[in-house]
């Protein structure tokens, strides 16, 4: 298997992501780790709540992965994404890509996170001291 896609309500295990992506055929791996930031536009963020339309989110992540394999000479791709409540400093997303040469790994990893943010049906609600906001919902 050259692909691993996971939506999980449990803490993501970064080391197991790296262990899965490493191989003797690879010249390098590229890992993107998203983390929950403590502020948005100067306002203190208390926590984030992630919700996914799970079957479609998995299907859209598979499409992104298929396109990345078509476009770059990469060997393995992993996407793990959280659902549920996350505190500041926790990890909502891990993307890992292995390739024989680093350019492909960097480019594919960048493409995967950028596209995931545009097309995969996952939503986050930011909680502030004065209320909650669904990110990007309103202009």
């Amino acid at each position: 298997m050259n692909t691993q896609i996971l939506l999980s309500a449990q803490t993501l295990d970064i080391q197991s992501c790296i262990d899965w992506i490493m191989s003797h055929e690879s010249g390098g791996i590229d890992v993107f780790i998203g983390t929950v930031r403590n502020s948005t536009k100067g306002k203190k963020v208390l926590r984030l709540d992630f919700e996914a339309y799970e079957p479609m989110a998995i299907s859209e992540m598979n499409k992104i992965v298929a396109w990345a394999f078509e476009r770059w000479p990469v060997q393995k791709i992993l996407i793990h994404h959280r659902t549920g409540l996350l505190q500041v400093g926790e990890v909502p997303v891990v993307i890992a890509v292995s390739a024989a040469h680093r350019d492909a790994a960097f480019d594919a990893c960048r493409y995967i996170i950028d596209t995931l943010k545009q097309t995969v049906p996952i939503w986050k609600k930011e909680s502030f001291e004065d209320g909650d906001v669904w990110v990007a919902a309103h202009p």
Partner: protein
Amino acid sequence: MKINILAFGVAKEIFGSSEVSLEMTNDATISNLKYLLEQQYPRLKQLSSYMLAVNNEYALPGDTIHERDEIAIIPPVSGG
């Protein structure tokens, strides 16, 4: 035909529920459905944008809806 629409994120708050039902004609399209939804839930028009999905695929305005399709409203996504 009766269709059910799944709602997520801010759409769930606008509907006040994670699923709503609507009665539509048999040849209804995605744009007919958008029109009906916006009549019943005018706050949808305040969103930056939103899409509808049919059977886990983003749908186009002219796509026809069939009974038992799984339909979902997809407000602006914000994963990652």
